């Protein structure tokens, strides 16, 4: 087993307390002209029950909520914050630096760049792991850290749904360190980019839906192969919350049982873009589904052909 590439030593997830039933949300977005492609019953059959909706806090406040505790701890420990890698899929058009300026000033990290990564959708978390892996393999020092932040808050029905999925509001943050005795060790991190869908051409969307599971299989097998591991040694798969129907397709492609996919947050939280994986891992740790010494895979799928897979060990 190779040495960890990096370790996630701290993380935080914020989900609004208000949850709307999927039936209600689908009705509302249909009335706003979104034309959701599934019936509410079919969507519920995939395991979805509710959509978290933020009704009082701004995106900036949501980001503060998940980042402030982490920044407080690393400031106390004298850790250098080299960069913040930021993903906001639903809230397109937001200006990253302004969302973080107050927060960084408060914790004396005003010179830390906030880099907004786009186009990878729900796979931006794996892009952040891939980039940080390169950083720590090169110039990154043991006292450095990179913070990945995901924050999404829909302001319109067209942000709430792209007609295929419903998106909840949430924010999350994960601190990446070069090495640590405890945390979520990252042993491998790979990306596969097809980028089929760069606009809404029906032919390209159809191509994406008919091939995505093959791309997932390819990147997962690549990670397992280079780590010298097999699927039987993997305790759980934490995947983007795309629902049981999609996961069934992936499970068949990967040759593993569906119950290897961690599904406990599907009903209450649904799909939260890049927050899905951090939420699922934290919840699995909290409930005892994931224990120290367990190996697991994180798999993300960004709409249009962006795929990420990473192998982790919980220490």
């Amino acid at each position: 087993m190779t040495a960890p590439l990096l370790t996630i030593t701290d993380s935080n997830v914020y989900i609004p307390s208000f949850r709307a039933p999927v039936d209600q949300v689908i009705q509302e977005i249909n009335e706003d002209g979104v034309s959701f492609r599934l019936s509410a019953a079919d969507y519920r059959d995939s395991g979805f029950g509710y959509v978290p909706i933020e009704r009082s806090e701004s995106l900036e406040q949501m980001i503060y909520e998940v980042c402030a505790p982490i920044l407080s701890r690393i400031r106390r420990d004298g850790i250098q914050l080299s960069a913040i890698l930021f993903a906001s899929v639903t809230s397109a058009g937001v200006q990253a630096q302004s969302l973080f300026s107050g927060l960084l000033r408060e914790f004396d990290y005003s010179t830390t760049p906030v880099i907004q990564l786009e186009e990878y959708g729900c796979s931006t978390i794996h892009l952040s792991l891939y980039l940080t892996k390169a950083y720590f393999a090169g110039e990154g020092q043991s006292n450095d850290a990179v913070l990945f932040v995901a924050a999404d808050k829909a302001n319109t029905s067209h942000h709430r749904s792209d007609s295929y999925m419903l998106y909840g509001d949430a924010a999350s943050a994960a601190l990446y360190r070069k090495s640590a005795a405890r945390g979520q060790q990252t042993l491998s991190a790979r990306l596969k980019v097809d980028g089929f869908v760069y606009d809404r051409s029906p032919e390209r969307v159809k191509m994406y839906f008919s091939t995505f599971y093959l791309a997932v299989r390819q990147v997962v097998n690549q990670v397992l192969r280079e780590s010298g591991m097999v699927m039987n040694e993997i305790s759980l798969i934490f995947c983007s919350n795309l629902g049981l129907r999609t996961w069934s397709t992936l499970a068949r492609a990967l040759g593993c049982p569906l119950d290897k996919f961690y599904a406990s947050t599907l009903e209450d939280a649904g799909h939260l873009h890049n927050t899905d994986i951090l939420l699922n891992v934290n919840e699995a740790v909290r409930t005892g589904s994931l224990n120290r010494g367990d190996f697991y895979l994180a798999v993300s799928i960004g709409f249009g052909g962006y795929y990420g897979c990473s192998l982790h060990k919980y220490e």
Partner: protein
Amino acid sequence: MDMDVLVLCHHVNTSHAEHVCAKIRRELNLMDVLPLALGHSGSLAFPHALSLLEWLMAGGTYRKAVCVLADDHFEQSSVMLPAQPAPLSIIEIMPQS
């Protein structure tokens, strides 16, 4: 074209469903190239791109990048650049040997 990374830096609001970097990559058949799109950071996007390229190039796997800086119009402020209707810069980046 001998290139490992394609970077797109832009600022203004593009359509939520449009992936410009992916489109450039597909249209020019650069399927082995790693795409990076940095947006909504104004003039900070290019220095951020350079930081990320330093990270990627330090390991030796990535050796050449092309950075495209482009915006087709300024929706937010409704300000058109007087000099050109569609500002565009293309910069080739390689690590110091």
